[in-house]
């Protein structure tokens, strides 16, 4: 894939990374500041004149407040932009409600209203549609495809639940399609169908055997419960499969960018590089890696600094020296991690590496988001 000419790989700006992109998927482990980075990225592009929507999963309470979407069922919210940007750009913040998204999917694809209701009330559905087992990842993508269909924005930024590796991020759709794999489940739902179909004797024997064992170890109620569920779900299967295919294609589109967020720690960087390679192996290209929360450089020592320390109380002087030494160790730790990352990203089509200096506090206000955005889109 050809990159923008005239720029050194790994040194491209965020503006250049996002050129022509319609969708940005933010990925990374928990606690790296992914949601703040997503908000900043969306804010920056909105200020540059685009109509942008940002979908977050689980913002920290104060960040949620800043975006006006603290509650899980919060309605989409327009975010105020600086006056000069308002004429051309816009920003909408949304929260993922994964249970609600799953319900909507059922309502949409079920053949009848009654079928939808029966499924929504089924105990197994309750268990599958909750946040367990990674269905949140799947629902994030599901919601995304709803938005792509309906939204009037030119850019969607989507935050994903924390994932340390490709397997975790993409296992959910795979698991769901595995679960709804027609071959396996329709058999369970409709034993009679099997007998009328030209299926091998072996498959028939295997099926009878499985049912007998399930009944023996777990009782009849599990067998009927699962069968019931599968029959209900079978109806919405084809809709779901089409949707999954569409999402997979969307994620691999040239107009989609993956942006990974990582902390400046060597161990984290090593995992991030492996994650990026694993995504590449399944056709998902990471376009930029944001190294978040670097400690700001020490202020250049002012002529008066030494003088000031001389004025310090004796014990304070020792304490301050210790604190300064620790801040230096921290910077050393971070720069080691950053070097490690840059060294791994030297190929022509390697992701851009963008380093962000941390704010003094957690990102909690629109002003913080705007500060972060300014840094994210700073000219190199």
């Amino acid at each position: 894939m050809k990159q923008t000419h005239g720029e050194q790989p790994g040194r491209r700006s965020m503006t250049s990374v996002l050129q022509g992109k319609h969708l940005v998927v933010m990925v990374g482990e928990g606690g790296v500041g992914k949601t703040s980075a997503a908000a900043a990225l969306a804010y920056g592009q909105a200020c540059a004149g685009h109509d942008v929507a940002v979908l977050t999963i689980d913002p920290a309470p104060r960040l949620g407040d800043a975006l006006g979407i603290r509650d899980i069922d919060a309605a989409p919210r327009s975010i105020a932009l600086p006056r000069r940007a308002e004429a051309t750009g816009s920003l909408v913040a949304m929260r993922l409600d994964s249970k609600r998204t799953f319900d909507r999917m059922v309502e949409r694809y079920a053949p009848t209203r009654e079928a939808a209701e029966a499924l929504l009330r089924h105990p197994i559905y309750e268990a599958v549609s909750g946040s367990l087992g990674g269905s949140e990842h799947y629902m994030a993508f599901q919601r995304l495809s709803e938005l792509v269909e309906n939204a009037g924005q030119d850019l969607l930024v989507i935050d994903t639940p924390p994932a340390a590796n490709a397997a975790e991020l993409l296992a959910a759709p795979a698991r769901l399609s595995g679960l709804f794999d027609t071959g396996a489940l329709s058999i369970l739902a409709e034993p009679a169908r099997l007998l009328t179909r030209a299926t091998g004797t072996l498959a028939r024997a295997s099926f009878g055997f499985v049912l007998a064992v399930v009944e023996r170890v777990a009782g009849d109620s599990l067998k009927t419960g699962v069968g019931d569920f599968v029959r209900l779900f079978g109806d919405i299967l084809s809709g779901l499969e089409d949707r999954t295919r569409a999402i997979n294609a969307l994620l691999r589109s040239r107009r989609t960018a993956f942006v990974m967020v990582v902390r400046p720690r060597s161990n984290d960087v090593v995992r991030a590089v492996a994650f990026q390679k694993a995504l590449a192996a399944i056709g998902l290209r990471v376009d930029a890696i944001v190294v978040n929360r670097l400690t700001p450089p020490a202020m250049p020592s002012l002529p008066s600094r030494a003088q000031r320390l001389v004025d310090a109380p004796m014990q304070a002087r020792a304490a301050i020296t210790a604190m300064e030494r620790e801040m230096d160790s921290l910077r050393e730790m971070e720069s080691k991690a950053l070097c490690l990352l840059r060294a791994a990203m030297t190929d022509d089509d390697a992701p851009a590496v963008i380093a962000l200096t941390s704010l003094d506090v957690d990102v909690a206000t629109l002003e913080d988001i705007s500060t972060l955005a300014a840094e994210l889109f700073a000219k190199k």
Partner: protein
Amino acid sequence: MRTGPARILFVSGKGGTGKSFVAEALATEATSRGLGVALVRVHAAEATKAKTPGSHGRATGPRVRREAAQVPAFREVTLDERAALEKFLTRVLVVGFVARRLLDSRTFSAVAAAAPGLRDLVTLTAITALAAPRRRRGLDLIVVDAPASGHSVPLLTAPQRVLEIAPVGPVAREARAARELVTDARRFVPLIVTIAEELAVTEALSLYEDMIDAGVPAPRIVVNSLWPLHLAAEHVDWLLASRASSDAILHHKRRRRQLELITSLEQRVGRCPALPFTFNEEEVPTTAIASLLDTVLGATS
């Protein structure tokens, strides 16, 4: 110490809080005290996760200490989902070849995936089996490096969920035994690792409540990576007014913000032990780990 069943120290927490690091350091410390220890890693996808050489198992910080002090290694157990399922099925079916045949069936995989809690129950019983008296093989303490918070609660509620859908039969028997163990404060010690950041603290609190709702003993919350204290309270004003050092001010502000969050956390759950931030990724705060182990084990012995 070697009489009675082994205890399970269940270490969970949000990703990025250093949960695995703490679990391993605790296992190392317990081993150095002469206990028979197993460290069980339960992250489903962990096997594919790349680690720096030196950040995994035997090779992390504790290694230095172990070599120096000739401390025997703890046992490391990585759960293999298929093997655990095979063992589980062999137990409930009694016949091994039937279990293997079942595992090869696609229909069965579908049932196993759909049945709520079954996979989690298999994982949980693989852990509890290690603590069973007759299979203990010299183990006193089983440290579980549990999955990130969102997946920990489903693991602990698995017995209940399975019992709701399959109240009778051999599977139900397994579920009851597992439920009994995780609700027994003498045998099951839950620990939540957090860092003093807003989202992490919120998540630790909700995990704390969810675990109590799940019927397990009240977890202890440990705050990892607390910034060290250098500057005495009476000198803070001087530092802020004189602005003698931007680094010292930054250092001070970070710690102050952490303390605010810890205060709000402790108002909800009582005193929380802390581990200091280490300015080197490989360094283990051994003194603090030792005192944490005293705290968690003392709580139940």
